């Protein structure tokens, strides 16, 4: 190779990797794995709704009892989400700049509706995450949620079950959840299989299987999450309102 005459101070190999095209993609993929695992765990917790008020209320109490550790988990999740979005936006800017003059006619041969809407689905999911936290975690959308209490084996605890039933009884609220979760399923229909390709864990034989499994998981998550607002709209849990 030619002799390097550059006197610029050299970047560390780690920084060079992190801010390379492949490094940035890797961060998006790794943070994506954590987000997918979180979403799966979150669904399992939510599904305790169908086991009745006592089960989900005690599950929620156990979570809150984690105390400071809960804040560590929350801070970790926030950091992961921030990294995911930061690197996505940085990739997006570069990708946009890489084609200054667009095609007059462009036909896609293989890109799917899911892969082509990653930014849109991601941004809507982000807006939804904020709404969801205000709705059920900070409880500022309907401040009455703060005061729902119930007796759990002789102890007064927050009545999460009632909060969910009241929350999802409002059709527009349920509609926001169902539409946003549909977009999350869009995001993951491409994202799950895509992360294996990004991380170098795929190959010609595995790719169609990752694509099938990723899409299946994405839509199973959708069915699982939306089963709760749908059930409430169909009358499940009405007795909690009395």
């Amino acid at each position: 190779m030619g002799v390097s005459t550059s006197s610029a101070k050299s970047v560390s190999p780690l920084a060079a990797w992190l801010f390379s095209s492949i490094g940035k993609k890797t961060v998006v993929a790794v943070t994506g794995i954590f987000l997918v695992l979180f979403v799966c765990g979150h669904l399992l917790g939510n599904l305790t709704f169908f086991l009745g008020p006592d089960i989900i209320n005690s599950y929620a109490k156990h979570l809150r009892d984690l105390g400071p550790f809960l804040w560590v988990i929350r801070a970790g999740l926030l950091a992961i989400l921030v990294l995911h979005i930061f690197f996505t936006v940085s990739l997006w800017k570069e990708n946009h700049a890489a084609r200054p003059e667009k095609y007059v006619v462009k036909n896609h041969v293989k890109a799917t509706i899911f892969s082509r809407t990653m930014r849109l689905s991601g941004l809507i999911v982000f807006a939804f995450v904020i709404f969801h936290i205000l709705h059920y975690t900070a409880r500022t959308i309907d401040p009455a949620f703060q005061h729902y209490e119930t007796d759990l084996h002789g102890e007064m605890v927050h009545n999460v079950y009632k909060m969910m039933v009241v929350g999802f009884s409002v059709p527009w609220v349920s509609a926001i959840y169902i539409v946003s979760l549909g977009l999350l399923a869009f995001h993951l229909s491409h994202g799950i299989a895509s992360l294996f390709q990004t991380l170098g864990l795929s190959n010609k034989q595995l790719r169609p299987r990752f694509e099938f499994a990723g899409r299946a998981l994405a839509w199973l998550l959708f069915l699982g999450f939306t089963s709760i607002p749908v059930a409430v709209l169909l009358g499940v849990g009405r007795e909690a309102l009395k």
Partner: protein
Amino acid sequence: MNFHLKVWRQKASNAPGKLESYEAKNIPAEASFLEMLDIVNDDLVAKGQEPIAFDHDCREGICGMCSAVINGVPHGKDRGVGTTCQLYMRKFQDGETITIEPFRAGSFPIIRDLSTNRAAFDRIIQAGGFISERSGSAPEANSVPIPKTIADEAMDAAACIGCGACVAACPNSSAMLFVSAKVNHLNLLPQGKPEKHRRVLGMVKQMDAEGFGNCSNYYECEAVCPAHVPASFITSMNREYTVAAARKSAGATG
């Protein structure tokens, strides 16, 4: 056969361009796409107009020089052939409107009309797409055993003719299919192993410096590749790049 053409005309890299309409008349069905453009150009020259500039060389699908995005698809690959020079007019409907644009990417500046400067690919090759060998008499070919499966895979990567259709097709103008084909072609083989890590680091660095976009796994590239290079090479390049970067961070030589 007759066609209505809409062709991108642009006088120079930094000049504005636009689609102009032309009629392609009495085109034989067995004419290639480039021959059809030759006929249209003869007509333009006869009328004293500037002919359409387009890239071409071998006209047999091996050099990677011809380009053009035909009805929104590089090389018109959706019609199931390979390069633009191998695409025959019988694949089109008589009377069809055909839009012809250059390969578009900031890293492939337009020279004129449909002709683009793809020297960025040459600079990526210079950054590692070679092996260092002593010159002199050729060694006995069979002295280096290579498993058949590895040889086949390296051949699939080596099929890349470096035309740039992958970049043209990619919504992000990413060059990852090209770079991964070159990296894998050499990294798979014993002759390329000594420079394996430096190669992938160097070529990816140059690819990024050239301003190509980043892969989002749309797979548009493999769909239009005239040499059928699969995107599975991209996943192995990603892996090799991270391994090489980790080795370099840890101070390993190579």
